[in-house]
């Protein structure tokens, strides 16, 4: 072998640039379909079966069973629904609130001063601690978790959008738009936001992936999704004491969680490449 591993990897990438993305899209589609239809077919997986405790994977229970005899496969699929919900909702909430705040902060100096001081304050607190604090104040439940995960993410997105808008507003076409008589709201909606949409959609994928991880972390710590609703986090948590005896309880949902987050990140990277103006310019010329 004459090629170094990194060169081989680079060659593979250039030969099949779409492979990783296609696999990611496939994985995402499968997980989302499972999230939608799985629980309808298989139920919630909450049925206890003491005779089937801690059984390894078999034809009967593909991912094995946990300490209460619940089917880990059914619970993992059921947990996908929870994770996808949390991921997508958080992305939407964070983009709407953080994106709007960021655009305004980038364009108006007085908004900038207020918003960025709040953002600095929020970012000084570790996200997961803030989320735990919010859940304990607001109580459990899906909506609470979405809020708790969104709040620490909002300042990051607002900062990013602010910096994007700060550079867009200095571009000559903004001055040109002002010089033909566009009002400030029009400038923002027609000229600034469309040019920031690329960055925004890339950020959406990262927020979505981070939210799925945060939800799992919160549930693992016992402050997330209530135990009667399966989620990847609390399935893994329920398996942690039996890790040596029955590693499958942690392994399967853990692997699927990783694949999901990796897929979303790969698609995000791909989107970023697509929206990179330099790459776009190269393609255009």
């Amino acid at each position, binding site marked *: 072998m004459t090629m170094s591993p990194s060169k081989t990897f680079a060659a593979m990438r250039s030969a099949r640039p779409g492979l990783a993305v296609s696999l990611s899209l496939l994985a995402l589609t499968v997980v989302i379909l499972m999230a939608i239809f799985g629980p309808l077919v298989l139920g919630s997986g909450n049925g206890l079966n003491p005779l089937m405790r801690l059984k390894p994977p078999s034809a009967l229970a593909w991912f094995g069973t946990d300490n209460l005899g619940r089917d880990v496969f059914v619970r993992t699929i059921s947990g996908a629904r929870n994770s996808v919900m949390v991921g997508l909702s958080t992305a939407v909430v964070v983009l709407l609130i953080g994106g709007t705040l960021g655009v305004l902060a980038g364009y108006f100096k007085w908004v900038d001063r207020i918003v960025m001081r709040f953002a600095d304050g929020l970012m000084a607190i570790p996200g997961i601690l803030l989320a735990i604090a919010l859940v304990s104040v607001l109580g459990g439940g899906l909506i609470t978790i979405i809020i708790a995960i969104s709040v620490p993410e909002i300042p990051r997105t607002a900062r990013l959008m602010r910096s994007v808008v700060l550079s867009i507003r200095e571009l000559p*076409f903004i001055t040109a*738009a*002002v010089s*033909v008589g566009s009002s400030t709201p*029009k400038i923002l909606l027609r000229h600034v936001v469309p040019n920031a949409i690329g960055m925004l959609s890339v950020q959406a994928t990262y927020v979505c992936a981070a939210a799925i991880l945060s939800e799992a972390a919160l549930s693992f710590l016992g402050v997330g999704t209530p135990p009667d609703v399966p989620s990847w986090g609390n399935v893994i948590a329920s398996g942690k004491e039996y890790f040596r005896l029955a590693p499958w309880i942690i392994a399967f949902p853990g692997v699927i969680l990783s694949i999901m987050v990796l897929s979303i990140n790969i698609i995000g990277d791909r989107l970023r490449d697509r929206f990179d103006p330099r790459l776009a310019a190269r393609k255009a010329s």
Partner: protein
Amino acid sequence: MTAQQPFLSVRNLSVGFGPQGAIRAVRDVSFDLEAGKTLCLVGESGSGKSVTATSIMGLHKPGSAVVTADRLRLDGVDLLSCDEARLSGLRGSLMAMIFQDPMSSLNPALTIGFQLREALQLHEKVSRKAADARVLEILQWVRIPDAARRMNAYPHQLSGGMRQRIMIAMALICRPRLLIADEPTTALDVTVQAQILWLLSELQREFGTAIIFITHDLGVVAEIADDVAVMYAGTLVERGSVHDIFERPSHGYTAGLLRATAEFVPGEESLGRLEEIPGNVPSFSMLPKGCSFVDRCRFAAPSCHERTPDWRAVATGHDTRCDQLIDDARAASALRETLI
């Protein structure tokens, strides 16, 4: 002053940047412009030409510049007393501007047709269909080939010359009465440059638009100007008709600019060494005492270091802020040198 007000009248326009406007990038600029005429603002980079133009348009970011003037009046409207909303209504309809860099002056995310339609609908209530017809008409007027199809094109799909013509179309779609062109041909090659200049003069003939043309290219000035105002280090140093300026340059700086222009004489082998003006434009924070051009001037006399010369009339409509080239004999010898 005559009974009739000039179309555009600027008196003692000053623009300062930085805290309390301490850096005075433009000082006491005054000129008039009649409808249907072209004024060329000439000067090297950093002399305040563009700042003067953006001040007339009111394009400075809020809080970034302090603009003062005794008078800044366009078609009877006092621009300085207009609030942002009123100015926004005037921009595009009464006055418009085209910029130096056609590559980045169009929004890359929107089609040409959309941007032109928006520029029109900002000022005129017209239906989508009527707007499209107007857009097509103006695109054909600026000689965009295959205009109907190009309406759906994005800026990156067009060449620089075409983009500049789109910019001109965008500035002109509401028929503004004043057009400010900030070095519109600098980024383009010479053949395209000629087309753009021709287009602008066509526009003037057809609609009687007044044009302020900012350039440092004296060849372009000779081509299109009616009047010329020469700027140096933030102030006007000489103003007059294009004939006055070219035939009897009466300021050391104008004479220097003319000397620094390459002239090709058919039949002669080479152009010889191109003359330059030694040194650089002084920084605004350390302007020399007296005439700001004194350190680079070939005609500088001791008195030039003492005080800034006042405006003096060379002839009717031709004024200079130079004491040295005011008398005919010296000016004539300076001119002779420019022709060598």
